[in-house]
């Protein structure tokens, strides 16, 4: 562990030459960084192979410990995990924290973790620190991810005996584009180039497409279309997708996701076992951290056991005279977490609705992710989809990474003589993208669940007479008001020829390519003119950086409505 913590080899934006000049088709590896566990897989020429670490494990805990100034991740030294967790030196759950501002409820929920998560509640990035030699050493989720990715990269390079540059990462559906840039940044810090960021259920869908393709090959069948619902719930996120697959093409019809997961279940249980836990642990002293860690481990263990047993005895000494001795049965567990299960149900219903698919049309229902072992989750899924049983052909913990590895091989241009890589995922946009107009309304230009690549344009116009500038503020999300959505970026169109309000036509075009790069283009046309009045603007989104929680408010304060736009009603 003498090598430097990490090297910033390239930034997300400066990877153009990577795409254009592959000397040989380097097969991208697939990485599934889970909130709690992580694994790596690669197409080995005939099939997907999961890479094992030096301890011969496929699944590795996603955490990094800061100790004696040298950080080390959970790729190899798993044994120290629980011990480090009690000391405050281990940072984990990065995936729940990355790219979020400190007003985010998910960040607030992370304050009970056994390391320091400090918020000022003003829309900046939260302060995260690990306790090293009784000093709170600050870090960032990106840095922690990068350290971890670097270890994964080292492991993969050792196993595959070749340098690794290109990766396909799986990400939660509900990640905003800003969060995606943070993931890309972390990869760049670790010297990795992101070939694709795949929403987790779509990776599963690709694996499903491959399996169906193989079935067809074996049976010499006709290969009719199969529609599957994929439900993926891990420690940090819950995602749903509906895919239609035929002939190795997986077409994503709808996506839905939310930042709920096993972590929420765990926290609910901790709260249930020790109602005053939040207050007790708020001081983040060494003893409190230890108690917090002990409670975490005991609760986690209990939840795992409740998947196979109907009741469990919890007996844990938290120190400081605090003892918990309680019997929890499954009904109690389900009652405590009923809100989470309800949310899961509503996500499934929403996704089916968006996909315009009836439950009778579903060929298979696939359940993956760490939470797939919870009986209640299985029941919810089966009852919503009206099924007696779920799809069996997949390992719930490895499905996503296998799909990512397949995508890595496909996107690297590798072909397989047996047609095993004769695959394609046609992705859809998980969130709508649009701009602010008509006051503080969010006007979607590319709606949710639009097939990618996508390009759409809308025409806007000025709201004031002789308005010579207009502000284009790009948002992503589903809310009607801009505040409910994720800010992606903003730019100003200047030099609009003076004209009465409503006359200049401001054409805003959004373009998403297959690798999910979003560009915003804007141009101004004056009626009667055959040329655009100004050079077009092309802006790659997102442009916002840290502390973006402030930006929208600052823009509003500075400009008010002076640079506003309204939509032009379609002339029919």
């Amino acid at each position: 562990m003498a090598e430097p913590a990490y090297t910033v080899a390239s930034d997300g934006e400066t990877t153009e030459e990577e795409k254009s000049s592959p000397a040989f088709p380097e097969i991208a590896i697939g990485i599934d960084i889970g909130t709690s566990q992580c694994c790596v897989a690669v197409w080995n020429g005939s099939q997907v192979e999961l890479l094992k670490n030096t301890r011969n494990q496929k699944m590795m805990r996603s955490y990094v410990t800061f100790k004696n100034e040298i950080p080390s991740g959970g790729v190899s030294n798993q044994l120290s995990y629980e011990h480090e967790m009690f000391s405050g030196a281990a940072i984990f759950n990065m995936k729940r924290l990355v790219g979020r501002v400190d007003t985010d409820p998910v960040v607030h929920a992370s304050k009970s973790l056994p390391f320091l998560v400090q918020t000022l509640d003003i829309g900046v990035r939260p302060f995260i620190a690990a306790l090293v030699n009784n000093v709170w050493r600050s870090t960032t989720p990106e840095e922690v991810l990068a350290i971890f990715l670097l270890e994964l990269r080292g492991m993969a390079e050792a196993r595959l005996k070749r340098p690794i540059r290109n990766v396909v990462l799986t990400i939660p559906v509900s990640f905003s584009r800003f969060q995606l840039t943070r993931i890309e940044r972390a990869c760049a810090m670790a010297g990795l180039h992101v070939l694709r960021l795949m929403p987790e259920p779509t990776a599963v869908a690709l694996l499903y497409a491959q399996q169906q393709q193989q079935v067809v090959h074996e049976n010499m069948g006709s290969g009719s279309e199969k529609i599957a619902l994929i439900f993926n719930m891990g420690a940090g996120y819950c995602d749903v997708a509906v895919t239609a697959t035929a002939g190795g093409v997986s077409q994503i019809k709808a996506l839905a996701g939310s930042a709920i997961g096993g972590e929420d279940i765990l926290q609910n249980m901790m709260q249930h076992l020790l109602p005053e836990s939040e207050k007790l642990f708020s001081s983040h002293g060494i003893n409190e951290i230890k108690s917090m860690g002990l409670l975490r481990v005991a609760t986690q263990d209990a939840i795992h056991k409740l998947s196979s047993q109907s009741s469990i005895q919890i007996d844990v000494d938290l120190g400081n005279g605090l003892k918990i001795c309680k019997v929890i049965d499954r009904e109690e567990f389900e009652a405590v977490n009923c809100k989470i299960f309800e949310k899961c149900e509503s996500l499934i219903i929403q996704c089916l609705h968006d996909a315009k698919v009836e439950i009778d049309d579903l060929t298979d229902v696939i359940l993956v992710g760490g939470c797939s072992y919870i009986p209640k989750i299985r029941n919810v899924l089966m009852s919503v989809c009206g099924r007696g049983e779920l799809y069996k052909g997949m390992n719930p913990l490895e499905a996503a990474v296998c799909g990512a590895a397949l995508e890595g091989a496909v996107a690297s241009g590798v072909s397989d003589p047996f047609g095993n890589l004769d695959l394609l995922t046609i992705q859809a946009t998980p969130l709508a993208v649009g701009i602010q107009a008509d006051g503080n309304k969010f006007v979607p230009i590319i709606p949710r669940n639009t097939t990618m690549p996508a390009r759409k344009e809308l025409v806007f116009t000025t709201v004031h007479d002789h308005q010579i500038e207009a502000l284009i503020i790009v948002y992503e999300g589903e809310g009607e008001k801009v505040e409910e959505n994720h800010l992606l970026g903003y730019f100003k169109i200047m030099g609009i020829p003076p004209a009465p309000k409503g006359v200049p036509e401001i054409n805003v075009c959004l373009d998403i390519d297959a690798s999910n790069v979003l560009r915003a283009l804007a141009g101004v046309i004056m009626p009667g003119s055959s040329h655009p009045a100004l050079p077009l603007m092309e802006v790659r989104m997102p442009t916002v950086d840290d502390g973006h929680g402030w930006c929208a408010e600052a823009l509003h304060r500075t400009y008010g409505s002076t640079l506003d736009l309204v939509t032009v009603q379609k002339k029919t």
Partner: protein
Amino acid sequence: MLASMFPLYKVSVPKSCPFDGHFNSKKSSNPRLKHRTTLIRCCQQRVGERERTRRRMKENYYELLGVSVDSNPQEIKEAYRKLQKKHHPDIAGQEGHEYTLLLNEAYGVLIREDLRRDYDASIGQVRFRRNVSASGLGYSSWRGPLRTQALFVDGNACIGCRECIHHASNTFVMDEATACARVKVQYGDDDQKIEVSVDSCPVNCIHWVDSEELPVLEFLIQPQPKEGHGVFGGGWERPTNVFMAAKAFAKQLKQEPASDFNQRNARATADEETPAQVEARINASMKIKMASFVRVWDFFKAAFSSGTIDGE
């Protein structure tokens, strides 16, 4: 089928995407696309026109996907997947971007019954709207008040004798490209001159037609690029009997909104065709052809409207 897709792709891609030059300048290895300075296109036109341009350039969705107008959703899906597997950027690289955009748009419309019906109607509707609004400004412009009768030269019969032009030079004009006479200005000369010119035609190819039918007739008589099959075909063609074609077209426009869906179903299931079905099928294939004609229509329209201004 796929081979024939390519020419279409080349033609329609740069036109349909306003910012094309812009996007490809960075990544595209295709210099041909790069040099097209079409990025101002979308800004050149007014909204309504742009809408029409988009329609025109992206059609025909059926051709793009390589399916017939009466194909069922299953066939459309299969065709879409097949093409995606060839052109999706994951497989074809960044160059596949524009084409995939078109595919997605076409598929998105055709796979939804309601949108597809609207789209089917819109192929006709573009012309239908012109029928009404452009009754005075079609290919031939009008001098004086609108009349119920209009002049029309059947280009199939015309031998290019220039007799009519000689008698009524303000009304008729020689179309050098087709070597046929054509009406430039309706009633461009006084009634007597026109009568003489009509009578003087040795092959009687100058007809008095209903003014309402005129735009369709003038549209149909324009030679249109013929669909090629391998090394055969190509070139230009027009309906041999333009009056029959116009009648069929008009009829179809009337039927369309009401019974489009039912008709299509009937067409798909019936083995033996009734005369009405035969006609419907002919109409449908006519419609596909018409779609590709609109380009030419606009070109001529532009040429003529500028000519009118000069004339007046």
